[in-house]
């Protein structure tokens, strides 16, 4: 070989190709279908994996370098936040309930995403998507861990999040986000990518992750804000992956289009139902609001999502049908959710409260068509009752939707005073749904959704009491026993914010930190 000859310098794209897909080979000792057993059964047809366009070109050396730099900065800030009692700088102690919701509802999902992308990153025969998925897998464990590490300090001082892993697997309302991700992970690898990579990361992330992080920034929570901002460049990569996946699948075969459309319809609705928790967080739990749920939906879904679906129209993909119903619900969603949690505050791991007069004014200005008419009178009544010592905690268990697992509290589209019920008979049993969309999802895959671990059913079946407790014993208090099973401490982790230890401690500690007492 003549070493003097100048070597041809590889372009970025070529270089990345030899660094990734060039490593792959066509096996001959084992069959493709044995090496990639999960790729055929969903009916998606891929003719040429080489047509995959790498959404980003990051080799491992660069990945380690960038990510380590971000980690160094992030942990330096977390350390400073902890050392300075940064938790005392938040707007007021009510804000910390948003953190509780996040660590017990969202952070465990980041972990599931990590495992899900490891699965997808092994399952696809195409080397391009495999590498992209594995990079997302390792990013997701980063997000799960940086969230736990940032919020760890709050747990030292405030209640409700001390056993969040245990809670996530058991507490009634946490089955909403949990079942969402379980649903995605138990689907085939292509549906997982459409559900999480596209619908969740691309279409809905601005409505989930961003409101929490912006909420943190607005409310002086430097710890949470920092991990959010640090995750931003990862999220940008995940979004480009989500979009590439959709385009790739759609371009490969026209027969893929109706399958993908069904998945987009399903996962937009599934995701939106999970966002119920975010909607109430934005409108009620942030002392300093960033924007209303309705505004967020209009900007991030109706405008941005609208443009996206216009772009996808050339493949034959249309705006998910549920968008119409969501538009009708946007004036009601957060209020109905908050009312529910206000009622069930005895059985949750965070505190609720009634908005004060200024906040009512804000809500009325953001929701001129619904708040004063429907929700203010309700809140006024509850406030009066609380002032008289009759703060009401519902101890009756609600009926849950078989698919989204939210209590059936939503109203008929366009009829906000009438509760919406749907039902289906399937194999001798009756199943209940909050909406036509959840019902449709069930009807498409009844074998899957009949398996759901519905917290209310489980309580009634006696599966949510601590071992050794006897429901037939005199004076058996089911709620108290369920709280023990959840490992929630009655009077500390639950009930109204006004009477909470969090509120008392925060006031005392802030005084200690700002005055000479």
């Amino acid at each position: 070989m003549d070493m003097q000859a100048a070597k041809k310098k590889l372009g970025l794209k070529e270089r990345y190709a030899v660094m990734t897909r060039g490593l792959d080979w066509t096996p001959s000792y084992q069959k493709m279908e044995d090496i990639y057993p999960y790729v055929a059964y969903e009916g998606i047809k891929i003719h040429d994996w080489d047509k995959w366009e790498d959404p980003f070109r990051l080799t491992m050396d660069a990945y380690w370098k960038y990510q380590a730099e971000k980690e160094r900065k992030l942990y330096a800030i977390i350390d400073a936040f902890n050392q300075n009692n940064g938790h005392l700088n938040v707007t007021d102690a009510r804000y910390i309930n948003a953190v509780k919701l996040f660590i017990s509802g969202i952070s465990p999902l980041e972990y599931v995403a990590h495992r899900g992308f490891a699965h997808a990153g092994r399952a696809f025969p195409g080397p391009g998507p495999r590498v992209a998925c594995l990079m997302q897998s390792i990013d997701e464990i980063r997000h799960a861990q940086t969230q736990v590490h940032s919020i760890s300090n709050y747990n030292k001082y405030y209640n409700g999040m001390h056993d969040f892993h245990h809670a996530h697997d058991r507490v009634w309302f946490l089955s909403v986000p949990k079942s969402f991700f379980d649903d995605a992970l138990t689907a085939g690898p292509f549906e997982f990518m459409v559900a999480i990579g596209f619908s969740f990361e691309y279409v809905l992330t601005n409505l989930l992750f961003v409101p929490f992080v912006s909420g943190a920034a607005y409310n002086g929570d430097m710890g949470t804000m920092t991990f959010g901002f640090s995750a931003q460049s990862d999220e940008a990569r995940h979004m480009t992956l989500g979009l590439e996946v959709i385009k790739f699948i759609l371009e490969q075969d026209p027969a893929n289009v109706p399958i993908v459309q069904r998945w987009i319809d399903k996962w937009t609705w599934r995701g939106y139902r999970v966002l119920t928790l975010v909607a109430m967080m934005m409108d009620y739990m942030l002392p300093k609001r960033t924007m209303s749920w309705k505004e967020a939906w209009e900007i991030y879904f109706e405008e941005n999502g609208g443009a996206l679906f216009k772009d996808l129209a050339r493949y034959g993909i249309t705006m998910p049908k549920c968008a119409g119903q969501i538009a009708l619900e946007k004036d009601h969603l957060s209020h109905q959710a908050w009312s529910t949690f206000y009622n069930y505050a005895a059985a949750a791991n965070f505190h609720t409260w009634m908005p004060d007069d200024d906040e009512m004014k804000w809500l009325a200005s953001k929701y001129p068509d619904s708040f004063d008419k429907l929700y203010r009178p309700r809140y006024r009544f509850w406030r009066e009752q609380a002032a008289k010592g009759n703060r009401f905690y519902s101890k009756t268990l609600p009926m849950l939707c078989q698919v989204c697992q939210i209590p059936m509290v939503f109203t008929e589209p366009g009829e906000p005073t009438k509760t919406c019920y749907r039902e289906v008979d399937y194999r001798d049993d009756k199943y209940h749904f909050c909406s036509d969309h959840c019902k449709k999802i069930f009807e498409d895959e009844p074998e899957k959704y009949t398996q759901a671990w519905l917290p209310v059913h489980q309580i009634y079946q006696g599966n949510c009491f601590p071992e050794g407790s006897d429901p037939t014993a005199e004076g058996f208090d089911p709620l108290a026993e369920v709280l023990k099973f959840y490992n929630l401490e009655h009077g500390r982790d639950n009930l109204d914010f006004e009477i909470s230890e969090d509120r008392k401690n925060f006031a005392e500690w802030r005084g200690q930190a700002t005055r000479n007492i």
Partner: protein
Amino acid sequence: MQIDLRTVSIKPLRHTFDNIARRIGADKPASRYQEGTLDMQQEANYHYRPTWDPDHLIYDRDRTAIRMADWYSFKDPRQYYYGAYTMARAKQQDTAEANFDFVENRGLAATLPDEIRDTVLALLIPLRHVAWGANMNNAAVCAYGYGTAFTQPCIYHAMDQLGIAQYLTRVGLLLGDVASLDAAKQAWMEDDTWQGLRRYVEDTLVLRDPFELFVAQNVALDGLLYPLVYETIIDDVLSAKGGTPVAMLTQFMTDWHAETRKWIDATVKTAAAESAGNKTVLADWIVQWRDRAAAALLPVSRIALGERADELTTEIVQQFNARMAKAGVPL
């Protein structure tokens, strides 16, 4: 001298999360490794069975023949959570980059004797495909294994193997060109020398037991390949013949193996110490995959070792047996 900076001190209500406190005691603060690892994986009340594997739960202890009372008995001695992991690798990457720069800027590749260069290209470059297989296998162990203590290091290991495949690609481009990569791939696909190893890798790609896969890939294959190729052939045999620049280009792999084997040994040790049953299963797997790996590596090692291949491979196998005995699995 000590100066006494003061901060407002507030007594915390608790030191860590309950799940950690149940394991280490409530009176201690937890490390970031512990908080980022223990019980991170969901444990109960899964909603649906995987449509891709309806016989199992989403996370299922029964995917493997290894039985553990507590899958969090496994501990990574490196205590890697994501932050610690990336910072360690970034540091190694700095060294690797400096080494590549050193060899490139001084034109050291051109000073390699032809014989050494050809040997290195013939031996090292097809190994990028082996590393690629290792990437896939560790992704599988991470996806289908049980418990974050066991699965977490596997995603790091998977990405490390991708990094190694990419370093090997760079070595190929530095000592040769794209045609060298193609030639190596052709050898990997067709030459008798490589078929045993390729068959080994493809056979591991269909393993369904994540712990057996861990053994076949991380314990047996890499347990022989790294000492043989990087420690013996490159750092020893070729360096003595003027191939030191190559040792600089592969320093990452040598250091990486020395580091990761601590985790691998700890994992074997914990599983073996759990029960006699585990120990038997492990010993069976290790013997079976060790013998296949040794046979597959023998023709490959002849590329550089010629007639000494048998003798040196036997030596490596003996060292491997001693290593396993130390990890609690005498073979």
